């Protein structure tokens, strides 16, 4: 088990390394760099040359790559080009809190909504409840989450004035307020995630519902809901868990746009800004972090399989 986890972590590190190298090389080949964005239109050729010299941008790719590896093994992600003097690590750390909370909040909404509608639809299969649940799921998959977000702002913030239009309050200033600010973005992101989970839950639960052990549980007199949740849902959860793992990447991607709509100072807005200003060290740091996060989530989910089904062994 421990050997398995160690191997998976090593694999994840390797992936992160490959991603970072690829990103570095691609970003180095393409024309245009941060010099223009930092120095502005007035900059002379000499200014740009000096700027590039100072940051070492004039060296060949392999030299820069080697230098970057060297600082990487020393735990240094480098310095941001456009935020003068700030290290990439501190920039990312400062933006991490809102994005993580938003992703967890949205996923919680998505998982609760998705499991509930999926179970309801499967239990009352073929009836109006099933039909309604699956129509809602289809709508949920099809609605662009940024449009849903705008509609939620229009109704709940601008018309009803129940929730803040945008912005973010750090946890240190009150968790309740944090949640209040993140409720609409989490809802917008969670709905599309829940739709995917609902379809998967329904499909897998339906396959399990006719199993012999379900009948056995019922004949022992176990309460119907207990049968469905503990005997049915638990055994149908493995493919659903896989989908939940994939949807975390979906939420992280959606968070980029949501953070811009709701003016949340998180990783999403940092990503877009560093892309627009060609601040490659920062972008690289973010890509590595995302690769690591998704690998971590996938590992956690693979380990959860074993909790759900003790027959699964990790070797």
């Amino acid at each position, binding site marked *: 088990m421990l050997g398995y986890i160690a191997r998976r972590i090593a694999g994840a590190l390797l992936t992160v390394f490959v991603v970072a190298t690829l990103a570095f090389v691609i970003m180095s080949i393409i024309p245009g760099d941060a010099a223009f964005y930092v120095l502005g239109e007035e900059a002379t050729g000499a200014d740009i040359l000096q700027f590039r010299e100072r940051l070492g941008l004039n060296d060949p790719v392999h030299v820069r790559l080697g230098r970057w590896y060297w600082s990487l093994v020393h735990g240094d992600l480098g310095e941001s080009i456009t935020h003068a003097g700030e290290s990439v690590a501190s920039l990312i750390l400062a933006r991490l809190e809102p994005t993580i909370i938003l992703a967890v909040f949205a996923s919680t909404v998505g998982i609760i909504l998705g499991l509930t509608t999926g179970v309801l639809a499967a239990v009352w299969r073929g009836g109006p409840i099933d039909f309604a649940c699956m129509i809602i799921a*289809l709508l949920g998959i099809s609605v662009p989450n940024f*449009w849903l977000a705008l509609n939620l702002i229009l109704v709940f913030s601008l018309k009803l004035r129940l929730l803040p239009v945008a912005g973010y309050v750090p946890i240190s200033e009150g968790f309740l307020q944090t949640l209040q600010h993140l409720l609409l973005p989490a809802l917008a992101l969670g709905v599309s995630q829940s739709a995917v989970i609902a379809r998967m839950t329904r499909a897998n639960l339906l396959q399990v519902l006719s199993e012999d052990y379900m009948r056995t549980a019922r004949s022992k007199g176990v309460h119907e809901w207990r049968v469905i949740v503990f005997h049915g849902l638990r055994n149908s959860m493995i493919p659903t868990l896989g989908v939940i793992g994939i949807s975390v990447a979906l939420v992280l991607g959606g968070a*980029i746009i949501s953070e811009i709509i709701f003016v949340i100072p998180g990783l999403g807005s940092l990503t877009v800004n560093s*892309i627009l200003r060609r601040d490659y060290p920062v972008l690289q740091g973010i890509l590595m972090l995302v690769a690591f996060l998704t690998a971590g989530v996938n590992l956690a989910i693979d380990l959860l399989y074993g909790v759900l089904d003790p027959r699964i062994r990790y070797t």
Partner: protein
Amino acid sequence: MNLKKLATYIAVALVVCVVVVAIFAPSIAPEDPNRIKIGQRLDRPGDRSLLGRDYLGRDLWSRLVYGARISLLVGASAASLASIGGTLVGLLGGFSRGFLGSFLMRFVDTVMSFPATMLALALVAVLGQRLSNIIIALSIAYLPRIARVVHASTLQIREMDYVASAVAVGAGTLRVLIRHILPNALGPLFVQASFIFAYAVIAESGLSFIGVGVPAGTPSWGNILADGRAYLLSAPWLMISAGFAIFILVLSLNTIGDALRDRLDPRLRGPGNI
């Protein structure tokens, strides 16, 4: 069951409508989508034009009509390019036992673990903000999905007796791949491609919405949405109409994808689907 069929027919009809509107945009749109009438800015729907006007007085209906072109172009091109590239990678990965196969699929898994939006965003930044580059970026971002599906089918099909017979009578690798394996892997591929069409429509409008998509000012649904964002209260019809157009197109594409899946993908057929 019949309701489902009806829904599929309606979805096909809607997509056909959007295609017709896109093709005949110049004759359907009452005005040039970029014509500025500053005196009529933020006109309400029905005042002097069908759906009202935006903050520069440009006719919203005309902009929506032309926007259909971009959404369809990006969606269809990204789905086709991702299908072609993904098929190549998937076939190779599934058929070549050994290093190349496992390397290709490991690479696909790595790309797939990234949020497609983030990947497309980074690629557009690297390639430059042009319509063709957006199509390329989205194709690369969605390629792994096709590769995975084709890979799975290939692994299954290559063990079939008819493939063994083909090899036995002396068919070369290329012939086996193209004549025997590919045709049998097409069903799941089409299903996945139809969903990618839908994802790409959403992704393109999302990129344009945050200003990293088609150049600002171009009549695209994402740009209309972005322009409307500043006028949520005073001119909500801008935001509502553009988003609704995206929503209806994507909903129709997803409905068609579901119907295709029920027909073409035997692995997913069964009690589990609606």
